[in-house]
């Protein structure tokens, strides 16, 4: 292993240093090494983006052009049976818009040893899946005369989901407005206030139907699969906070495709990484070839404010300093009117507003300005 002087460690990226260490022969002379490193630094510096280069424009074209070939199909099967996953253009739009509600939230739950080897995986999958009262009921109907809700329990469904009578009575005893009585398979839920209108009774029934019995809230489907050498659980529905707290989960590798959830639980930097991963996954799955640097640039813009902002008129565009730049994107009248009302100033410091006014733009060769250093008296 060659040792590289400290001054070069800061001048070159880690990957280049690592490659050099691997490729250079061990007995290289000091002089030769110096020469190679100088050459590397010179090449690296010449490869850097020039000041004033319109990197955003290049990114937009580089993502947009292959994007035209992306499938317009909203849903398709991503290799896993029985699970719909949004991919293609709709997914890209969803991510870059920074939507809070995504159409198919999913998690990849990695398990701790020894469960990752497949031990008890079915049992764990069932424990994670959320079971609601309606899932273990074969019949729910309203008894108007007694203003009560009568539920017939499905014993086989209960057994499959690992639900006992105690689970049900405990879940219902938490609710203040109702009194539940269980006898055999029949569950009788009665409202405590005597005279409920039929409308209220119907609302009550809808509430009782979705009473949480067991599992992690929000996880509607579970699917154990083998990925590489490990058994993991893919879920429909997402709840990163609660799943990371489970004892049999490997919290270091478990991820969700809901970037806002990642931002909340792990912070903005993790959300940035998750967003890049999600966008790149879609582009890769479509067989397209977009350099990851373009995606990194877009996502850095989205996360620069400390929270995820979509590329929309409510997101990053609303942060622009220039009125004219904002007006040139969407809803121009709103922006121009508001600016007029509060007397906003436009410094004409950026590109779009100068294009609108037919002036040289501060990008590329238009960026450098003449500065005169005053000297003497």
């Amino acid at each position, binding site marked *: 292993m060659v040792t590289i002087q400290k001054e070069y460690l800061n001048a070159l*990226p*880690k*990957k*280049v*240093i*690592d490659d050099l260490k691997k490729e250079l022969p061990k007995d290289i002379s000091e002089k030769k090494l110096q020469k190679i490193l100088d050459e590397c630094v010179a090449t690296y510096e010449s490869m850097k983006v020039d000041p004033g280069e319109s990197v955003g424009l290049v990114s937009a074209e580089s993502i947009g052009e292959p994007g035209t070939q992306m499938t317009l199909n909203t849903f398709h099967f991503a290799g896993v049976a029985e699970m719909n996953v949004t991919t293609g253009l709709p997914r890209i739009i969803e991510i870059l818009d920074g939507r809070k509600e995504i159409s198919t939230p999913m998690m990849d739950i990695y398990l701790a040893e020894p469960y990752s080897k497949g031990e008890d995986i079915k049992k764990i999958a069932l424990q994670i899946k959320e079971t609601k009262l309606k899932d273990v009921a074969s019949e729910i109907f309203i008894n108007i005369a007694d203003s009560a809700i009568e539920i017939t329990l499905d014993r086989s469904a209960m057994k499959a989901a690992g639900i006992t009578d105690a689970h049900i009575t405990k879940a219902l005893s938490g609710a203040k407005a109702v009194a539940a009585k269980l006898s055999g398979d029949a569950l009788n839920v009665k409202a405590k206030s005597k005279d409920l209108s039929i409308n209220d009774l119907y609302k009550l029934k809808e509430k009782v139907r979705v009473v949480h019995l067991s599992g992690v809230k929000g996880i509607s489907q579970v699917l154990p699969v083998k990925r590489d050498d490990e058994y993991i659980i893919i879920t429909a529905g997402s709840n990163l*906070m609660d799943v*990371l*707290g489970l004892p049999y989960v490997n*919290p*270091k*590798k478990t*991820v969700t495709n809901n970037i806002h959830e*990642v931002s*909340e*639980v*792990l*912070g*903005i*930097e*993790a*959300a940035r*990484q*998750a967003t890049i*991963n999600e966008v790149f996954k879609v582009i890769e799955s479509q067989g397209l070839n977009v350099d*990851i*640097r373009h995606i990194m640039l877009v996502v*850095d813009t989205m*996360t*620069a*404010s*400390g*929270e995820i902002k979509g590329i929309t008129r409510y997101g990053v565009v609303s942060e622009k300093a220039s009125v004219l730049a904002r007006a040139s994107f969407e809803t121009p009248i709103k922006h121009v009117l508001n600016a007029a009302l509060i007397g906003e100033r436009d410094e004409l410091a950026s590109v779009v507003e100068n294009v609108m006014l037919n002036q040289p733009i501060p990008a590329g060769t238009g960026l450098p300005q003449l500065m005169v250093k005053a000297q003497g008296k």
Partner: protein
Amino acid sequence: MAKQKSVIKEHILLPEHVKLTDKEKEAVLKHYGIAQRQLPKIFKNDAAIAELDAKPGDIIKIIRNSPTAGQTIFYRGVTDV
């Protein structure tokens, strides 16, 4: 909750966060020739810096794993929400 916080520090999505000292802070701002408010931002209640006791005005150094450069350094200024 308390246990969770220590666990998530090693999550694969989460890069290392370091709070800069005043001296390092000055060096960073001087190197880029900018003011603190011109840095990208991180909220003071961000989950990743919960244990760093960061106040608005601090700078957080983030050591990212990069697919192109191997490792890159990024800075964010701490702000109020």
